[in-house]
């Protein structure tokens, strides 16, 4: 079963992150690297990506003639995706356990961040309703 594990933050969260000490940043980067390696070594890794800064985000809508209209105005409360992991596991419980690991990534002062990770199932292409 495939699940996506998503880490998000408001612009304020991102701005705080940018102000962490060098040591805290290093610990977090090291943790993320080790976490990714764990996923690969245990054979559950499918994909992972980190996304660009919210300041560079654009919202695109189709104009009258199908042209792309872009703007970068978002509400303060908007949660911006920071990154995701897609894993292939035996059960939702296994996915939640792994998400808890990601959530424990160290934050300021090296303490476990406890950042919430959204877990959603990735729909498969399976087509069998037994009809």
């Amino acid at each position, binding site marked *: 079963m495939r699940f996506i594990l998503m880490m998000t933050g408001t612009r304020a969260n991102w701005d705080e992150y*940018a102000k962490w000490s060098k040591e805290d*940043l*290093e610990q977090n*980067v090291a943790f993320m690297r080790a976490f990714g390696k764990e996923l690969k070594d245990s054979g559950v890794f499918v994909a992972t990506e980190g996304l660009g800064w919210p*300041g560079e985000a654009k919202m695109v809508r189709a104009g009258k003639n199908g042209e792309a209209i872009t703007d970068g105005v978002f509400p303060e409360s908007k949660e911006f995706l920071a990154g995701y992991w897609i894993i292939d596991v035996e059960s939702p419980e296994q996915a939640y356990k792994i998400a808890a690991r990601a959530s424990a990534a160290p934050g300021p002062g090296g303490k476990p961040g406890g950042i919430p990770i959204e877990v959603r199932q990735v729909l498969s292409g399976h087509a069998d309703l037994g009809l």
Partner: protein
Amino acid sequence: MADRLDPPIEQLLREMAPQVLSPVVRRFRDFAAAEDAVQEALIAATEQWPRDGVPANPRGWLIQVASRRMTDHIRSEVARRRREQVAAEEAERLALQVEGAAETVDDDTLELLFMCCHPALTPASAIALTLRAVGGLTTAEIANAFLVPEATMAQRISRAKQSIKESGIPFQLPTAEDRAQRLRAVLHVLYLIFNEGYASSAGPQLRRADLSDEAIRLMRIVYDLQPDNTEVAGLLALMLLTDARRAARTGPEELVPLAQQNRALWDRQQIAEGIALLSAALPKGAVGPYQLQAAIAAVHDEAARTEDTDWPQILALYELLKHMSDNPMIVLNHAVAAAMVHGPRKGLELLNALDSDPRLAERHRLEAVRAHLLEMSGEHEAAITNYRNAASRATSLPERNYLMMQAARLSDLRRADQ
């Protein structure tokens, strides 16, 4: 299909790829179909050779199999095309013919490169096609290297071949007047392949074809074909001199800048080779941008320690380079060199010219350099702001992490002082 090929067979097939494609294209005059046929022949070889042994005439074998695929393909289109005469015996004859025509192999490979790097193709298409047709990489390897699914890369290559077909580019060496321009296009594509490999060497990667090594390998082929061309020598030298530092670029930190690299890890043999190539090329007179960039790399590589770097030399070389090219990256690097020789204020002044340059697409590089120079001139508050701006605009995770840590390092210092 064999999961992992015997390295010698894999190597042999990679080398043979362009040498098989060229005669087939020449005979059948259909690049796209020929490329498919050669791919099939290579796949057949990967299945049969480990089992039955490498044939006595591997190239002939591949040409024969590819030609048979071509005639099958043509026969099935006989209603639409008027080439019924092409038969299996032709294929046999062709295979024997090319056996004795060793001299044309070189010209063929050059033609192939010119075709794959045709200016009508987008850089991404040219890169993919070159790696496939000349490099002999599989679609899967190329896809892996560029982080796209295999089917996507297959489609990209297919469309590139279609472009060539539609543009009616003939499979022949360009005229003497076109040749210089077309060779520049080839060098540019190989330069891009090298950079892609080099830039991606920071940080762990899934198993993938090593693009830098492949670029150097293809560059050596071009150099063998055009040994008297100084820009060809210059680009090969540049690749060797840059690649020589590879082992020192990655460490526990994902990105180790030049000034902090452990120079004991640099490949001295590669540096010596690069310098030899450059020394032979420079006196010939036609000094171009690749030679200049190689010369700059050589000056860096010759410094035993960072503090021994001959910055005035580097500045002079960038000044020459600036006259040849208005590439904003050169302006950026020139500003850094100027700062090292005349002080950071001078460098910062030069950066201002780039603020309004629309061609500097990756603005984070400008902000990163500005931050570095501001730090050098003691303006830490402004440096922190610029490092953070650069970080927020970074296009890669290693770059973002690095820039954030520079901001954090300075910020920690300020906090400690308070």
